[in-house]
């Protein structure tokens, strides 16, 4: 059976499925794609000696599209979970983002402990498909968990006072608190609830590609490139604020 690596070489382009997700992948003011993943995929293609082509795809259609061969690999901030791993293959993780809670100040005024969130009257929101949802389910089994297609809508839910807190991977919660000071705050001083393991997703039955991508990640972890890029995008938004249309 032919490996997707051969296909990529023959075609001369690496096609990457992704979805918009600050600061992993977003639009610059010029409408171009930029972000951590964009850097990763571009470098990956460079190292393979091919062009890169991004296929922005709605999150809910991204897995079938991968399986149907609409692109070669998903580099989309996708976290490894055993459940998902039964359907697709994951490479070694290339990032470990921490998850933070941003909470509505008013609603959580008398919350003193992490366990206060674990109550049937508490609404917690997350973006569908991020590892944060799993984290919430594990940490607060009694709370209502509502999943939205986008962080923007999830956040609005907290701002409107319909939900107590939103979970998202750092550094986004910090940006939100900055923008809406007084309405929301980082819960427990921004303590990380859990770390995710973001990895590339591939179709099953292709050990060659899996091996190649995993080792590419390993090499770039060793030489510090991944960490350097990660820091650039995740430690704050001053560095890229101007090019991006985000707040």
């Amino acid at each position: 059976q032919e490996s997707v690596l051969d296909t990529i070489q023959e075609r001369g382009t690496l096609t990457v499925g992704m979805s918009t997700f600050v600061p992993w992948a977003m639009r610059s003011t010029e409408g171009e794609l930029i972000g951590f993943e964009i850097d990763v995929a571009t470098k990956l293609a460079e190292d393979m000696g091919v062009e890169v082509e991004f296929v922005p795809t709605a999150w809910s259609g991204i897995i079938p599209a991968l399986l149907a061969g609409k692109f070669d690999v998903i580099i989309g901030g996708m976290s490894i979970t055993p459940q998902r791993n039964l359907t697709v293959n994951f490479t070694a993780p290339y990032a470990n983002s921490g998850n933070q809670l941003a909470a509505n100040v008013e609603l959580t005024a008398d919350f003193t402990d992490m366990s206060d969130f674990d109550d049937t009257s508490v609404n917690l929101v997350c973006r569908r498909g991020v590892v944060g949802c799993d984290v919430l389910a594990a940490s607060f089994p009694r709370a209502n968990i509502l999943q939205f297609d986008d962080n923007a809508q999830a956040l609005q839910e907290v701002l409107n006072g319909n939900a107590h807190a939103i979970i998202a991977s750092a550094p986004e919660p910090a940006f939100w608190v900055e923008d809406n000071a007084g309405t929301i705050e980082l819960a427990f001083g921004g303590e990380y609830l859990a770390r995710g393991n973001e990895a590339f997703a591939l179709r099953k039955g292709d050990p060659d590609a899996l091996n190649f991508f995993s080792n590419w990640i390993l090499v770039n972890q060793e030489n510090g490139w991944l960490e350097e890029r990660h820091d650039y995008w995740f430690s704050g938004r001053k560095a890229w604020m101007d090019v991006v249309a985000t707040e």
Partner: protein
Amino acid sequence: MALFGLVVAAVVFVAWRVNSVLVYNWDWSRVLGFVARIDGETGQWVSNLLLQGLFTTIRLAFWGTLLAAIIGLVMGYWRTCDTLALRIISRTYVELIRNIPPLVFIFIFYFFISSQLFPALGLDSIDRDSPWVDNAFFRFAFGEPALFTNFLSGLICLALFEAAYITEIVRAGIQSIDRGQWEAGRAIGLSRGNLLRDIIFPQAIRKILPPLAGQFITLIKDSAIISLISVQELTFLATEVAATTGKTFETWILVAGMYFAICYLFAFVFARLERRAGRARR
């Protein structure tokens, strides 16, 4: 009149409360930047994501309307014709599409059928740089050559979906023509084909124009569903812009305005057409 005042008062009240209740920083500038921007190098205005999305939606609307009308016309005719096989096929087609959620239809079509059909037709391996596709007209009519196959499968998907409803409209139109017209046509010895072309369709078209216009407007709005298969139309790009900027409301209000503009324009054109068709008669 009292009723009218009441509604106006309600609208004013809501507008007034928006700012006092809603925790939201309105900022239109970011979103508007995604409609059009000044190019850094040339210093000229160029379209940005939202406008590009709007163009894609308009392309989808135009070709989709055309394609759906053709399919719907053929299927609608099949629904009413004597051949049982054609009746079964068209009936099944209509019932299937009307009863499956669009999402699932798109999945099945895109992931199973089009991924078989397109390579078989050689559409997957179109040379993107050949002068056939890499020219101004092609770009104007179908958008970026690189995205053409996606555009096409989205288009076919949408057209097939809407055509099921058009089929029913056409059927109703054909059946609404007085039986006497069929009989008179047959009595002067017209063949079935001639009868349909000269007598039935021209009369049916006048009757179905209004519901047809409604269905085409639905088509424009439903074109959002194919964002699921990476067609970069207005709704899809709006989601991206909203995600990037965090300005959900501005984006969606703007997008609603854009949809309203095309739909209303479309309705207007159709109303004109209808009046023309009506006037021709007396």
